């Protein structure tokens, strides 16, 4: 009852695929921590070339993780909040699945412990009778 109506949206593979790269994740973390940044500022911490960074930014943009705009002569990047919401939604869906399942696992283990205790007790009783 929990899962079926909120299965992750189909664009999530693209979203997570975009994040599953150390450079792109670092870019996203920098934007998440500091808000807007120019492409030049984003390039600064990396040893890879500006065209390489540019390709990473294009991947992030097409997956909907970031958006770019031109401010006078600068190209400015920022995170799209709905991308983060989608990621959080995915994590939350998983959390609900596990919480519900682990509640049942707990009960199953308790039931089995009860059964084993009964078996052990009856075995004990048999021992005594002998």
């Amino acid at each position: 009852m929990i899962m079926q109506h909120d299965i992750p949206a189909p664009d999530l593979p693209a979203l997570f695929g975009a994040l599953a790269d150390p450079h792109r994740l670092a870019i996203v973390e920098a934007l998440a921590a500091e808000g807007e940044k120019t492409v030049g500022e984003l390039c600064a911490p990396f040893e890879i070339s500006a065209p390489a960074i540019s390709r990473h930014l294009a991947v992030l943009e097409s997956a909907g993780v970031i958006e770019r705009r031109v401010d006078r002569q600068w190209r400015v990047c920022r995170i799209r909040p709905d991308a983060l919401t989608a990621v959080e939604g995915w994590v939350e869906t998983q959390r609900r699945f596990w919480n519900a399942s682990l509640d049942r696992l707990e009960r199953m283990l308790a039931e089995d412990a009860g059964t084993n205790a009964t078996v052990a007790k009856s075995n004990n009783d048999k021992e005594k009778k002998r």
Partner: protein
Amino acid sequence: MSEDTTLRMERIFAATPEQLFSAWTNADQLVRWWGPEGATTPKHDLDVREGGAWITTMRHEDGSENTVSGVYRLIDPPRRLVFTWAWHNDGPRGHESEVALDFEPVDGGTRMVLVQKTFQSAEMCDRHSMGWTSSFNDLARHVESLTGGTAA
């Protein structure tokens, strides 16, 4: 951001690590607790070995079904179990993530830590990079054979 893309849960169960490990890797036990309250798991296949595929289809009380599948990455009973994880959304497998379980004996039972990453860790990718493509193809075939080409 890293925290947002990783789920970490921790619980203490009144059971031994061996019992818990078996609850995850023994299909007869897994189907008794897999999924939310009221769900059953009418279709399942667990090939419990490293590189082996697993798939389960849950049926909910309203008759709707969800399939989830993956590949076992690390099997170290009774301490650690790692597998990949993806929902099937209207056919194709969705985004693949990685679930790692650690079982540690504590007073009164076992502490289980579940960490689910939205993408596989670099460690696991490195470790399995050689077998990655082939096991993925195996899984795709496996899934097709189970669902007759149309995932639930």
